[in-house]
């Protein structure tokens, strides 16, 4: 009797955590079916999937970075600036050092150095943001708004705002590789990032620390967690991921520029919230974020297939979705709270 009751309650609890994932899955299927029905010959085709797989990894990876920051109770608005700055540094290095017409074998070492350079710039950017937040106690939203301006400013400064093109051909050739003539390299990178970050959050000590600190930094301090180091590491990871996104953007555009992907910042916040990351910190999973990425990609690719819907409507739709999700989540949490209150009266 007691055991069955306990089992039932445990299941009840699980499904109380999962409804978010379930809701997202329903939404994902709904959007997919809707677009397939409305644009049967365009949406559910190999070509359109291939194109979607090339589009979302760059902002998907940045969404994951923002999500990590949000789980610790902060936010990282500097992801796009970091991505562009690190890509520009890599591009400048390649353009400045690789001799023209060098054979591929000779270019490879330069590419490796460029990638490492760009990743280090990403780490450095994350370190700056993390230091401002953890050591100087500046609210994350202000600190990263500042770093976003700073990084974009530096990027404009060192390029005079001009696109950095003339990269060695090999870079974009590798960057645009497709496995089985269908799966782009960028998608594979996204996949690896999502899985490893997901494992980090759910299976490692550090992941648990992030959730706990995001829930209540004061209690975290009293439990012996090193909040400063957790915050710092979180933003370093976010910076690193941003530079990966920057490298992907650079491969797709075959150039780097200070204002690439400008609208991504808010889009990534939208994805994180839609994906169930609690803006107050402490909750959310990469599974949810991934589904949110797919939902938005389906929506935006689908909408693109309607000639009479202007691109401007996309902002209206996305803004609307964000507000709806926020209100819906609030309503749900109120309902849960009322339920908890009732239970505690027992």
């Amino acid at each position, binding site marked *: 009797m007691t055991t069955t009751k306990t089992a039932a309650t445990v299941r009840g609890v699980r499904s109380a955590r999962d409804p978010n994932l379930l809701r997202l899955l329903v939404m994902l299927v709904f959007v997919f079916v809707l677009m397939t029905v409305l644009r049967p010959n365009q949406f559910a085709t190999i070509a359109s999937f291939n194109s979607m797989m090339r589009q979302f990894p760059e902002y998907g990876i940045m969404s994951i970075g923002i999500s990590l920051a949000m789980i610790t109770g902060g936010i990282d608005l500097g992801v796009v600036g970091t991505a562009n700055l690190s890509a520009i540094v890599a591009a400048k290095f390649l353009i400045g050092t690789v001799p023209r017409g060098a054979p591929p074998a000779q270019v490879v070492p330069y590419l490796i150095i460029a990638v490492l350079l760009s990743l280090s710039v990403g780490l450095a950017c994350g370190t700056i943001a993390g230091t401002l937040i953890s050591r100087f106690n500046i609210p994350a939203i202000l600190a990263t708004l500042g770093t976003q301006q700073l990084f974009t400013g530096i990027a404009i400064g060192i390029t005079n705002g001009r696109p950095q093109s003339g990269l060695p051909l090999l870079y974009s050739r590798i960057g645009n590789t497709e496995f089985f003539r269908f799966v782009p390299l960028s998608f594979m990178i996204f996949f690896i990032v999502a899985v490893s970050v997901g494992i980090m959050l759910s299976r490692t*000590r550090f992941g648990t620390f992030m959730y706990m600190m995001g829930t209540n930094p004061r209690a975290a301090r009293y439990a012996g967690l090193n909040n400063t180091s957790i915050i710092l590491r979180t933003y370093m990871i976010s910076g690193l991921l941003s530079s990966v996104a920057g490298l992907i953007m650079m491969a797709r555009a075959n150039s780097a520029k200070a204002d690439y992907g400008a609208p991504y910042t808010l889009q990534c916040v939208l994805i994180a919230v839609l994906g169930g990351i609690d803006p107050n910190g*402490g909750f959310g999973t990469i599974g949810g974020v991934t589904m949110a990425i797919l939902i938005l990609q389906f929506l935006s690719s689908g909408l693109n297939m309607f000639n009479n819907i202007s691109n401007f409507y996309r902002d209206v739709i996305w803004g609307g979705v964000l507000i709806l999700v926020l209100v819906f989540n609030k309503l749900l949490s109120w309902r849960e709270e009322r339920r908890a*209150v009732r239970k*505690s009266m027992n």
Partner: protein
Amino acid sequence: MAASVLRVKGITKSFGGVQALRGVSLDIALGEIHCLAGENGSGKSTLIKIISGVHEPDAGEIEIDGRRFSHLNPKEAIGLGIQVIYQDFSVFPNLTVMENLALNSELMDKRKLVNYKRARAIAANAVSQIGFDVDLDERVENLTVADRQLIAICRALLQEAKLIIMDEPTSALTKKEVKALFAVIKRLQARGLSILFVSHKLDEVFEISERYTILRSGENVASGSTVELDRKTFVFHMTGRQFEDEFYTPSAIRREPILSVRGLSLGGAYADISFDLAAGEILGITGLLGSGRTELVETLFGIFQPEAGTISIRGKEVRIKSVKDAIRKGIGYVPSDRLTEGLFQPQTVERNLSITVLDRLSDHFGFLRRGAIAAMTRRWIGDLSIATKSPALPVRTLSGGNQQKVVLARWLANDLSILMLNGPTMGVDIGSKYDIHVLMRKLAGKGLAIIIVSDDLPEVLACASRILVMRDGVFVQELDPTVTTESKLSELSTGIA
């Protein structure tokens, strides 16, 4: 008996299948101080909310001034002179005392413009009614908790209250402030008001009220005149359990101290503190809020760094650089505020319990050993009999006592040599309080060195083997609990005889 100001009969209320009240009755006479007692979840709050019109009862009858109602709405309740002073007082912190007091009546009169002269007169009149000396132009956020409470009482008076319901009014007050509050309550009574005083603290019930009503699990279990009530019966009615008398005789205090503090000072908090603590000992530190007691133990836990003095553990001088460092040195700390410092309220019981031992329960690369964590959680839930349906539930769904046990388990899982508890049973019901006391004594018996910081004097007397009284940042005296009384302790910590 005098006429009733409020008579409640056979009130029943359920929330989604949960029966909160089962036919509860309550009778408050004119000019009476009546105490409503009961543990958390006994239905006290639900009853108050029904009387004040927030909830509608499923069945039963409310009679106020001879008029009968099947239910009220908040406006009607206020109109009938029922005022509730909730724990958060519902005052506007960013407004001045005068504005807080006068604006309500200005609004009630449907005035469009505020006449500051009239507002000042109203406010001045209200504070003088209870002999409350306060600057009318001070912002309420700058006032102490006790003063804010008095503001709320004044406001109730302005709305022509006949019955003032105070929901656990003393939970955030110091002993001295409680005394002052009681004086105000007596004054209100002299003016012919009735007071319903909601509390689960026995001493207060005995001190202030004339009659009492005790609820348990949504039912009346006892009521009558307070003078005929004794401590044991009160606790029995509240909990339905019989408890042994409590005291602690240390059986195995080691000779060498495990912790020695010499001349420890922190500016603005405490100065020149010296004491020894041996394994098997329970050292009680008592003092008022602001006496430096919390800063002292938090220094030993690595939250603050002392400006002078030394700390030695097992004879070796150490510097406790951080909380993590303190844990490494075998020191655990149960902070005073469970809500904001002790627990991660929305996170699971398992996460809350295992957070301090994750280093041990994860592998070389930082991957969690989830089986070991689950097993450890189950073990501690069993060992401390923590009442929860599942370790996967958010810890906030647990009662105060069980939450406190989760914090305790977190430290006990850590192989400590020194455990410090700040207000270990604050806001915990009597049954769990007793359990926690028993547990502390058992742990000390097993060789743990324990420090409890508490202003719950009976608790200190019952648990500690030695008591240090702190006042204004210094130790004023060391006492032996077996030969000390509560009044002696209170005298020493307030400095008022």
